[in-house]
């Protein structure tokens, strides 16, 4: 109800605003129109001149333009220009990269020489850092930032998706294309194998969730990567901090911006599987025969509910040869028999879907009060054909600032957003439809019976359930947040106090409704699948945060500069998780707890509360702007630890040297703007454990059995708790180099770092199972991460046909690797667990020599019987030949330990390596073209055992039959090609961790490196002369494509995977031990058409 009111009021407000804006402007347009046409018919005359810099040297390629027109030229090698301008009142704009633009009234002159002043360079750009801002020139921590410009080039409903690949070592992996998908932000690789941890994300200084943001509200994003820059955030910022700053209120007359767009979406990858029923069934039988050692037996069912007989197969063959014949018949037992060629994927997915976004913002104000208001409506329709998964999102933000007097100002920042997402479900399970289709979506099975009823298969695989559209999930999230803050400056530029208080409320609600669905297996033979079940999860979070800082900048004379910061930060989160479930709808059209009568209902209320308190101090000192020093420390307390372990002190320090400002570098000063060396070291605590982990607690619940006539309240033993539990620590060493050259045309930034994460809170040593409990966790492990990042940028401006053409190129590459340096939990160095010295992501696997050619080769080869190829484990030509690396005559992993790993060796690494991003952009005559490529340079991927889109019939006889495999499989009597990629067709070869393909091996290790054109934008801005006529300040039309082109190493052997969607299935649904690679919501590509108007 509240959501509905909220949505309506939001829409109403937006509507009213738009109405008034357009209404009041109407008059202005008509008034100004006449004057505009008159100017065009004027005569032209010539202007010449020279443009020089402050040293009197000519500037080559500087731009001269008639203000408000596209008329312009550039200077030649001598810095000279000549331009035809209309006679009358003309103002010329002179501009050059790295110099301040000048606008001069021509005032009838025929010669106009100009001297341009060097602009305050980008080095003076202010970058948001922890509890303040700093000039880029003075930064000595590893800090990166981007502004809204970079984000605007990527029209994307999610800030997170827009950020992917934009900042070196801000690693964002979107596991699929679900419109509601959010992901955590990783900074600089593996954080902790214990408590884990991702970057702390602060929105306007307070922890927030980027998914709640309207991307149009974002002004800038900073990433604090090393311990030194994140030190003031202490334990909350251990693994980096992302500071998102929203647009500020701007003084002056009202400025209104409208941004609207319409997008078309489609899947990046459409899994291609055989849909011919006969072809599929033949392969099914081959695979089955292979597993059963060619005994000539046949299965009684295809999986479990689809009957199989040889007679049916013969009939299938007959009907396949004669497509005119009906695909369904009623057999002797009165049951339907199916002979389909069903493309279940085509039934499940739409070819195209679409979405739209409207965004309106206004800002303005006086010297006393200013405001920023924005609202957004975003919708994206789902990709599923039925019960469509439509997303709707509303955002509203209001910011205001009142300057009470010269010393005191008060700010308020309010935001509210609401997201609703509807999602179809399978009636009887929370499993993924993609996985169920593998199990029950055979081409021979069909959706409907001749009488229009559903087939059992269609309800089992879920597509039929989707079609009925009455088993579904509704997610609704409401976020409200208000921050009120003050700035008090008792001594201008010397002493500043800042304080703020935030209250935020988040209500997340998920309702799942499952219903019974009826199917028919023959005329009059009906069955039922599903549940009459309703579940509701409700998570309410009340979050309070307050920050108080004092900034002191004493005047120590010209040469010295000191900035002292002290502050405190307290955060508390009070969360209640409510859950209820009940069976049996009394009124199926009204799924509500009270309108149900199941006795086995559950109502739960759980808490998840925590609080953090931190006191911090920071001192920045610089001498002559050349020698920079920063020291900080934070004293942190957390409620998640036992009383005696709650507090920790975490210090850090950094130094910087601006070589370019040294006198001896003076000769280079005309081309070298900046050369800075940085070094930092610091330690931060990580308290990212779940609350209450140190308490010995007993959980009370209801029995699942009926005891003494009903369900009884029950409890059982508490889990083992750690003897001791304290902060994990992360110590980061960082060295960096910044170079800016040629008036900021060219920049290089390099950072290398090492992060030691120690005392990681991990599982205790493996103890004999007779303990009857998993060993309690403890601070038992250490990790080392090494990495580097490199950014190179170039931008310049050329003259083409006397018009300026500006372009920019920015390339980023980064990498990191991690090693376990201590691990107490694995004394035997079992490879199945973490072990000391292990590089994270290393894949241990067998080596495959090829396919066996004949029985003699098999007889002479090492014993492979531990890796069962079939029921009786009888090897035949065409089977995989494993290399006996340790020459012991047996293919096996030995003890599976580091000392005795048998025939295993490290065959690859699953970590994403050499991330890169390339930004290309150009502007000419109002047109802009920008492209952003993103990718991963190296990554090995071994498809998990349940990755049916890869393994096909090698996984399950009744699974998918990928078209990639057709013709490239060794099949008895059909294709006995010793060079086939896929070995002798037998099923279950990948279905198990000690099966020949289920064990990792080099043959089936895939190259998951990729490069992707993440976005390509073409835009056109209307020329100023036209705009002034309609009294607008900017109009930009744009067309953006996302994920339009991809190259990936995967396609060598499989075309069914998007390189970004090779994680395990959708975490919103039931998962199967992370074995479901590729079964997720498809990644989408889209084309967006939009317009951005500023009044």
């Amino acid at each position: 109800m509240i959501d509905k009111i909220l949505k309506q009021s939001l829409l109403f407000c937006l509507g009213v605003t738009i109405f008034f804006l357009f209404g009041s402007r109407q008059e202005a347009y008509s008034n100004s129109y006449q004057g505009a046409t008159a100017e065009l018919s004027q005569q032209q005359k010539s202007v010449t001149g020279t443009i020089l810099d402050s040293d009197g040297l000519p500037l080559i390629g500087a731009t001269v333009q008639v203000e408000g027109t596209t008329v312009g030229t550039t200077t030649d090698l001598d810095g000279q220009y000549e331009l035809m301008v209309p006679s009358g009142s003309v103002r010329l704009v002179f501009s050059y990269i790295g110099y301040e633009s000048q606008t001069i009234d021509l005032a009838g002159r025929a010669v106009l020489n100009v001297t341009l002043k060097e602009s305050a360079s980008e080095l003076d750009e202010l970058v948001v850092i922890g509890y303040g801002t700093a000039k880029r020139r003075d930064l000595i921590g590893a800090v990166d930032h981007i502004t809204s410009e970079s984000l605007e080039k990527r029209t994307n409903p999610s800030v997170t998706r827009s950020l992917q690949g934009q900042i070196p070592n801000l690693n964002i992996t979107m596991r699929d294309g679900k419109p509601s998908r959010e992901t955590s932000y990783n900074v600089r690789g593996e954080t902790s194998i214990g408590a884990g941890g991702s970057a702390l994300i602060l929105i306007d200084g307070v922890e927030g969730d980027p998914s709640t943001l309207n991307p149009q509200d974002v002004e800038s994003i900073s990433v604090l990567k090393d311990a030194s820059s994140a030190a003031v955030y202490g334990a909350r910022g251990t693994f980096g901090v992302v500071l998102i700053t929203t647009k500020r209120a701007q003084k002056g007359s009202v400025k209104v911006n409208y941004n609207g767009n319409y997008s078309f979406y489609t899947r990046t990858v459409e899994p291609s599987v055989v849909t011919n029923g006969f072809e599929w069934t033949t392969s099914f039988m081959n695979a089955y025969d292979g597993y059963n050692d060619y005994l000539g037996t046949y299965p009684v069912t295809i999986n479990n509910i689809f009957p199989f007989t040889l007679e049916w197969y013969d009939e299938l063959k007959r009907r396949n040869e004669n497509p005119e014949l009906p695909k369904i018949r009623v057999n002797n037992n009165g049951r339907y028999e199916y002979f389909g060629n069903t493309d279940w994927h085509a039934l499940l997915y739409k070819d195209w879907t679409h979405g739209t976004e409207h965004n309106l913002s206004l800002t303005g104000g006086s010297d006393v009060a200013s405001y920023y208001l924005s609202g957004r409506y975003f919708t994206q329709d789902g990709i599923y054909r039925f019960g469509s998964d439509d997303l709707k999102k509303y955002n509203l933000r209001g910011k205001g600032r009142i300057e009470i007097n010269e010393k005191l100002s008060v700010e308020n920042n309010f935001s509210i957003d609401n997201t609703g997402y509807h999602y179809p479900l399978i009636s009887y399970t929370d499993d993924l439809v993609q996985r169920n289709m593998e199990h029950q979506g055979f081409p021979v099975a069909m959706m409907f019976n001749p009488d229009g009823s559903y087939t059992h298969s269609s309800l089992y695989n879920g597509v039929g359930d989707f079609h009925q559209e009455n088993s579904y999930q509704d997610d609704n999230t409401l976020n409200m947040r208000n921050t009120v803050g003050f700035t008090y400056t008792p001594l201008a530029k010397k002493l500043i106090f800042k304080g703020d208080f935030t209250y935020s409320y988040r209500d997340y609600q998920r309702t799942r409704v499952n219903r019974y669905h009826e199917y028919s297996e023959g005329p009059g033979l009906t069955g039922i699948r599903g549940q009459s079940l309703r579940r509701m999860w409700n998570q309410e979070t009340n979050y309070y945060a307050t920050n108080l800082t004092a900034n002191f900048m004493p005047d120590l004379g010209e040469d010295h500069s000191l900035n002292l910061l002290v502050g405190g930060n307290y955060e508390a989160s009070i969360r209640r998780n409510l859950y209820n479930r009940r069976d049996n709808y009394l009124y199926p059209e009204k799924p509500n707890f009270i309108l149900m009568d199941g006795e086995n209902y559950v109502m739960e209320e759980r808490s998840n509360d925590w609080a953090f308190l931190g006191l911090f101090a920071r001192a920045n000192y610089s001498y002559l702007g050349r020698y920079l020093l920063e020291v900080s420390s934070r004293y942190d307390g957390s409620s998640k630890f036992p009383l005696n372990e709650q507090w920790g002190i975490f210090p850090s320090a950094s130094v910087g040297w601006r070589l370019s400002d040294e006198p001896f570098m003076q000769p280079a000063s005309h081309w070298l703007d900046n050369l800075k060396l940085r070094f930092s070291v610091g330690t931060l605590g990580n308290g990212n454990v779940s609350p209450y982990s140190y308490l010995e607690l007993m959980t009370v619940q209801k029995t699942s059995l009926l005891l003494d006539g009903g369900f009884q309240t029950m409890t059982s033993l508490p889990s083992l708790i750690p003897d001791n539990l304290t902060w994990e620590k992360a110590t980061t060493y960082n060295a960096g180099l910044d170079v800016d050259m040629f008036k900021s045309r060219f920049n290089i930034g390099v950072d290398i770092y090492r992060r030691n994460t120690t005392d990681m809170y991990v599982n205790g040593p493996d103890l004999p199972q007779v303990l009857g409990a998993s060993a309690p966790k403890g601070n038992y492990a250490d990790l080392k991460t090494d990495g580097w990042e490199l950014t190179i940028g170039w931008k310049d401006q050329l003259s083409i046909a006397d018009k300026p053409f500006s372009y920019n190129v920015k390339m980023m590459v980064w990498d990191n690797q991690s090693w376990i340096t201590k691990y107490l939990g694995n004394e035997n160095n079992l490879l199945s667990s973490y072990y000391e010295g292990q590089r994270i992501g290393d894949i241990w696997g067998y080596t495959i020599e090829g396919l066996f050619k004949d029985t003699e080769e098999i007889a002479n080869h090492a014993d492979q019987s531990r890796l069962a190829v079939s029921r009786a484990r009888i090897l035949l030509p065409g089977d995989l030949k494993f290399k006996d690396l340790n020459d012991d005559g047996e293919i096996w992993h030995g003890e599976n330990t580091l000392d005795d790993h048998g025939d295993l060796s490290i065959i690859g690494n699953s970590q994403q390596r050499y991330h890169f991003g390339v930004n290309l952009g150009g502007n000419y005559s109002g047109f802009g073209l920008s492209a952003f490529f993103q990718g991963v340079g190296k990554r090995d991927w071994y498809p998990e055992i349940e990755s049916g889109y890869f393994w096909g019939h090698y996984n399950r006889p009744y699974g998918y039959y990928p078209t990639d495999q057709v013709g490239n499989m060794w099949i008895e009597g059909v294709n006995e090609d010793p060079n086939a990629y896929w070995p002798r067709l037998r099923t279950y070869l990948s279905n198990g961790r000690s099966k020949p393909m289920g064990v990792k091996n080099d043959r089936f290790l895939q190259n998951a490196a990729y490069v992707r054109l993440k976005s390509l934008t073409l835009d056109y801005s209307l020329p100023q002369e036209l705009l002034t006529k309609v009294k607008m300040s900017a109009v930009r039309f744009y067309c953006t494509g996302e994920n339009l082109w991809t190259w990936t190493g995967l396609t060598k052997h499989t075309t069914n995977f998007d390189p970004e969607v090779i994680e395990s299935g959708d975490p919103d649904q039931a998962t199967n031990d992370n074995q479901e690679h590729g079964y997720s919501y498809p990644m989408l590509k889209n084309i967006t058409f939009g317009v951005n108007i500023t009044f």
Partner: protein
Amino acid sequence: MKRILQYFLLMALILLYACEGLLEKEPIHQLSASEFFSSESDLEIYSYSFYENGLPSVDNIAKGDGTSDLAAVTIPSTFLTGVWSSTDQGGWGVGSWSALRNINYFLEKAEKTPVPEAVLNHYIGLARYWRAVFYLEKVQTFGAVPWYETALHPGDPDLYKGRDSREFVMQKVLEDITFAATHIRENKDTYSTLVNRYTALAMKSRICLYEGTYRKYHTELGLTDAATWLREAADAAREVMDNGGYSLYNTGKPESDYRTLFTSEELSKLPAISKEVILARGMNTDSRIWHSLTWNFNSATNGSRWSLLKPFVNTYLMRDGSRFTDKDDYDQIEFLHEMRSRDYRLSQTVRTEGYKRSTGAAAPPDFAVTLTGYHIMKWSLDDPKHDGQGFSTNSIPIIRYAEVLLNYAEAKAELGEFGSTEWNLTIKPLRDRAGVASTEPQDADSYLQEAFFPGVTDKYLLEIRRERGIELCFEGLRYEDLMRWKRGELLSSAKMPFKGIYIPAKGVNYDLNGDQQADVCVVDQLPSPTTPGVKYVILGSNMTLTEGDKGHLVWGWGVTRKWEEKMYLRPIPETAITLNQNLLPQNEGWD
């Protein structure tokens, strides 16, 4: 400025002070372990967790005999057909041992609860009952296992101890179950879903009979005290018989009383049969606690098509008390006639003439489901709607008084103390209920000896084993019966092919339920046209006739079930040995 700084410092201090307390957070939904165990109610709610962990599943009870000499299944267990090793073996996971930890934790803590001793002993008895059940299963699976009676801690050296001998562990089990059978309260709950003193006694008879016979027949163990165990078994059973207040459910309807025990729907029907049912798993529609047994036993696909085997069906007597197998042509009788005038339990275990679904439709054995023709319906509800959905609510008896009688009979017979008195106390009432004339055997049944128990000469013991097989058919006990009798061989294809009904000729339509409608026809190829209503059994590699064009149907499946001596015990799983080498030596034959 000074004032401002002071103000700021003050703020910081207040903040710090206020927040110190706020850094303590406790969950609202869990109890602190240190304050638990303070009342009888605490003991009671904890005790329900034992049931959660220990009560056997519906599948273990009703489908467990799928691996036995009673039935054919589509795909037999890999343990019998495949290459089995310690890497395939489960049953030693943390999850399995956590049930024991849960009990031992209770036993440690409960002592301190301020309640009268009798109250405390009742709950301790419950915990020990479930520990006995836990260890019985471990011993049945692995033989010698380490015995633990405290909740271990991570640093405990006992984690790494070796296995305790079978004798030691079973002695402990006996102590536990004896304590339970002494101290658990006598009063029964209305639904037979809680353990009372007689449940413990019944379980004691089961455990002791198991161990007694196991020791007697597994002479390789060299244990000579089988008689002690058998005596304990007989005494415990006798106590239930004398004082338990239980009796067989017999309303004088031999054609239906037996099956009523297995098809009583809803919790509300449990009280009616609770005089015989000692412990049950209750089912109820309103509570959404149900199972899929009707579906499983009537589906060509959603189940293993469990079907009784001809040799076992042969053991059902004629109602006049005579042996079916004494007929000259007993092995060549057409199904319809074969099933007539037999022990009424046969027509309540498999589909026979006259069986109808609740719709009134005749239901002959369905060859889309059954592999042998003996279509099991003991657990199936008559309403065919259950054939396609998993909402059956017939409650599942776990221990029945009938078993207590059989335990008593067998223990006495093994002790050589069985005679007419015992017969009249045990076998007679079972046969009475089943409408079978109770005639004591005059001699050892040569059919039983030949087909099942070659070493047994005691005429009573053979009759008791016959009775046990029939009465407890598909109640999940048969596999362990074979183990203790050392008759694992009966699981092999060689001894016990999946043999079905007798088919006098190929290509002939047969009526299976006497309604003059043809039901089945065995053919090489599907004829054209086909006769409506007839299920065609097509011969081939999966299904054959013993004599080519006639004989018994045999479900083949191309795989051989093997039995070896070592298979009486399972190997200790490799994952267990990896973490504790002291569990070695491995069970014999599994190295």
